[in-house]
């Protein structure tokens, strides 16, 4: 993972580097061609001037040889030598080292050479003009150094500019991002994206706005649906229940029919419970509960235990408690009661008669442990309507509610299996 900035900067830098590397030989080549042309022209001019100067002087023939020797001495760049009358020297332009030319200059520099024929007093003479040009390596090195310098300038510039841009141009983007990060569908709070003058970001914000609005409204509708459906079901359930009870009072009822009514009553109680639990889950999801009360957790637990004691006794379950006094927690007392009841009822339901249940409450953790055969899958345990036992009496929502209440309060709810005990822990 890379930041956007380094992602865009890197190709830029690579591109610049390539261009600069390619430019070095190109520079070198171009400069060389121009330079050679200039030098060759210089040599030509030299030949012309020499010829013209000798012509102007009109030196008598006998002195000419002496003068040419003198010329060659004071003008080391040129060399004039008599050749047989009527013959000419083939014109040539080439590059040669100082050694091959036997020059006094002993450096290993390269020279540009022009060999041609000039005419003095109507006689042909061999003429050679030699001009030094800078060593190739030095030229390339110089160009490379200059290029590198500019490359450095470009990198520094790019980094500085990009940094600036990221702080200003990308500011709205960062703002949008941080708002999205803070968005929680459950809070039902709309996001207001700030207006920017960047077309792309404005488009992004508009699209996000539409998306968020749509999601929030769909979510809301869904929740309202669950809540309304549950509410709407209460009335027909109430009618059914009342009719069954009137049926129960009928004088002609046989014992068999009474049993049927009883079974129906039980099923009805279960559907009413599922309905109520669904409603409760929705309302926890909607955060329709106040969570600022200070709850005496130990008192809530003792009350629940007191209320459920006869059911423990009924199944002959040994209850071993270790409850610290004065354990308090911040939250909603009704939900806390539901959480405690659900965990205790869960233990009653799933402990075999004659088994034992350990209940402990200390400062950070409330634990209910009941005897069991084998570990259960914690991923499925808290899932809505997933069942592990053959007993189908429950609503299938009890532990989901425990988990939701935990989440609502920021209490961690955990399950583990240890020494043949199912242990549910709530970290307050």
């Amino acid at each position, binding site marked *: 993972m890379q930041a956007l900035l380094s992602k865009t900067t890197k190709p830029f830098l690579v591109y610049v580097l390539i261009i600069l590397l390619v430019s070095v030989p190109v520079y070198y080549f171009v400069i060389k061609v121009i330079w050679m042309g200039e030098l060759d022209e210089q040599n030509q001019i030299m030949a012309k001037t020499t010829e013209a100067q000798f012509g102007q002087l009109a030196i008598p023939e006998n002195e000419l040889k002496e003068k040419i020797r003198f010329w060659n001495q004071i003008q080391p760049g040129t060399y004039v030598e008599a050749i047989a009358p009527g013959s000419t020297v083939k014109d040539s332009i080439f590059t040669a080292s100082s050694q091959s030319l036997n020059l006094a200059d002993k450096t290993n520099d390269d020279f540009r050479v022009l060999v041609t024929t000039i005419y003095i007093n109507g006689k042909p003479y061999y003429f050679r003009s030699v001009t030094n040009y800078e060593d190739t390596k030095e030229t390339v090195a110089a160009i490379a150094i200059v290029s590198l310098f500019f490359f450095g300038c470009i990198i520094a510039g790019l980094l500085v500019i990009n940094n600036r841009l990221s702080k200003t141009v990308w500011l709205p983007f960062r703002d949008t991002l941080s708002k999205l990060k803070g968005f929680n569908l459950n809070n039902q709070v709309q996001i207001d994206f700030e207006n920017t003058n960047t077309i792309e970001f404005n488009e992004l914000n508009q699209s996000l706005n539409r998306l968020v609005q749509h999601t929030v409204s769909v979510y809301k509708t869904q929740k309202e649906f669950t809540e309304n459906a549950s*509410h709407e079901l*209460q*009335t027909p*359930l*109430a*009618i*059914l*229940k*009342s*009719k069954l*009870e*009137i049926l*129960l*009072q009928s004088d002609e*009822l046989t*014992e068999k029919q*009474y*049993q049927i*009514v*009883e079974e129906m*009553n*039980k099923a*009805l*109680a*279960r559907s*009413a*419970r599922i309905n*109520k639990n669904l*409603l409760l889950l929705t*309302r926890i999801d909607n955060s329709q509960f106040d969570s600022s009360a200070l709850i005496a957790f130990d008192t809530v637990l003792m009350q629940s235990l007191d209320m459920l004691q*006869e*059911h423990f006794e*009924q*199944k002959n379950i040994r209850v071993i408690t270790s409850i610290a006094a004065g354990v308090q927690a911040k939250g909603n007392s*009704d939900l806390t009661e539901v959480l405690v*009841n659900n965990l205790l*009822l869960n233990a*009653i*339901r799933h402990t075999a008669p004659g088994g034992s249940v350990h209940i402990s409450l200390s400062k950070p953790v409330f634990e209910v442990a009941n005897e069991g055969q084998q570990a259960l899958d914690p991923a499925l345990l808290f899932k809505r309507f997933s069942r592990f036992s053959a*007993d189908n*009496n*429950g*609503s299938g929502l*009890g532990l989901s509610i425990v988990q939701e209440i935990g989440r609502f309060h920021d209490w961690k709810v955990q399950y583990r299996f240890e020494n043949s005990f199912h242990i549910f822990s709530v970290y307050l």
Partner: protein
Amino acid sequence: MKVLIIEDEEELAKSIAEYLSAENYLCELATGFTEAMNKIHLYQYDCILLDITLPDGNGLQVLEALKKENKTDGVIIISAKNSLDDKINGLQMGADDYLTKPFHLSELAARIYSIIRRKQFNNANIVKQDELEIDMLAKTVSVQNQPVLLTKKEFDLLIFFIGNKNRVLSKSILAEHLSGDFADMLDNHDFVYAHIKNLKKKLNDAGCGQHLKTVYGTGYKWAGN
């Protein structure tokens, strides 16, 4: 005794009326807000059953009107909403009880019984039923001036039976009444039997007749006058 049932769901209202009529209550029905307002204005009731969500108004406004007119009718809110806020609001506005749908008619009858007795006899809260004398406020029972010591649950159960006298109360109904919200989560309802056995024994020992009868194997009823 007169009971007004304010409930827009006719079938439910009819069931309630049918069940209560056998209990010698005179029931009147109001299916809407306006009808209800007219009735409470004109008549005095011993108990009003009030559904909060009415098609043409909010049931809580009926409660407000009752309070304004200083009427002392007992009010039980019956609502599909199991919302604590509604419950607290309703009770603060002067309702005497709050029952969430779906409920058992026997549960409703027992609550009506208690409310009417509490309201009617104000200070001298003694209800006579067969050989029993029941103090509704102090929650004590005596037979021939001899107190019968009942636990809270046993007393509660007794009032439930007396509030539904001569009615069949099935085991599951009794379990729901006793354990409140979570009877259906218990796979065994035998705890009902234990409480009834204790209650029967205590009443017998005090010299009370055999009024608690077993019906259809697992149901019970209070047979009395």
